[in-house]
């Protein structure tokens, strides 16, 4: 068990992060390279100022028309994305591992707060799944990959909560937790989770078109 633990906590984690970073860099680079080759007509219209204007306006909760049209979803979606990174970075257990590995540390969340956030994130995952089933406009464009990606995202949180509360066999759970997180990391650049990387590009491009050419807000 210790060997497996050390494998997923060590070499596999390194591999996952390496694939994530290299894959992400490749994803962004290849997108830009293809754009340069084939979409010059598009690149010519990219304006840093209007791209930023669009990105900022879409990063403020309830700032855009559509966000106000869907207040519940907006709140939930913003919470989910923020909580995802807050938990990843500020959970004490993660920070301790980083501190012991790299000697750097920062403030951490009290475990009780992290625990509540993690449960809330699990709730959000259920919300996303239920929404996919019951909202016809979402259900119509949903296929198994959407549930697959949602499961991929849910898994580290579920196993993390179970491991923290030491439900089930602890070692199995903590290994699954790290393994599922590593799979998620690897999946990001190569699935639709790559919206994490590409959203700012698509947003920036359309923001530029709306701002520079069309002189109108895109939110």
């Amino acid at each position, binding site marked *: 068990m*210790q*060997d497996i*633990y*050390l494998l997923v*906590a060590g070499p596999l984690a390194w591999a996952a992060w390496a694939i994530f970073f290299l894959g992400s860099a490749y994803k962004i680079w290849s997108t830009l390279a293809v754009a340069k080759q084939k979409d010059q007509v598009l690149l010519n219209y990219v304006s840093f100022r209007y791209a930023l204007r669009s990105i900022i306006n879409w990063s403020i909760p309830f700032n855009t028309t559509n966000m106000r049209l869907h207040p519940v979803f907006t709140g939930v979606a913003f919470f989910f994305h923020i909580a995802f990174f807050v938990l990843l970075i500020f959970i*004490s*257990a993660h920070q*301790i591992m980083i*501190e*012991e590995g790299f*000697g750097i540390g920062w403030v951490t969340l*009290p*475990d009780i707060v992290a625990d509540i956030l993690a449960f809330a994130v699990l709730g959000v995952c259920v919300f996303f799944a239920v929404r996919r089933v019951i909202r016809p406009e979402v259900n119509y464009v949903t296929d198994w990959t959407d549930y697959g990606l949602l499961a991929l995202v849910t898994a580290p949180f579920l196993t993390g909560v179970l*491991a*923290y*509360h*030491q439900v089930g066999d*602890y*070692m199995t759970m*903590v290994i699954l937790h790290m393994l599922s997180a590593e799979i998620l990391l690897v999946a990001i650049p190569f699935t639709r989770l790559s919206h994490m990387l590409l959203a700012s590009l698509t947003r920036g491009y359309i923001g530029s078109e709306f701002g520079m050419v069309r002189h109108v807000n895109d939110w």
Partner: protein
Amino acid sequence: MRHKLYGYVIFCSVVLCVTFGGIAAFAQDTGVFKLETFGSLERPVSTFDHDEHQEMDGMECSDCHHVYENGVKAADQSSEDQACAECHTLKSQGTQPGLRQAYHQQCKNCHVEKKAGPVACGECHIK
């Protein structure tokens, strides 16, 4: 009578001392560390069986009760008479790890090296 009373007081004192001393000694042996430094604790305190570790083959007291001089472990010195927290402050200082990190490293590094003993959080901090 008066001598008998003195004898009684002395006897009681001895009994009390032995009892509390024993309790104190017992507590230390089952591995409750001096944790005041941490303030309130996030996780359950890890249990540590001092005797079990002491009796292991090849274990020296100074493996854990070490003394560092200028960042180098002094070969023939040990520090059984000191609490970890006397050197290891809450925050790390230079190459000297902070108290929490010191505990973690002291246990885990050896467990990894010996391929035995707990390494994951919940293996020591059991709820």
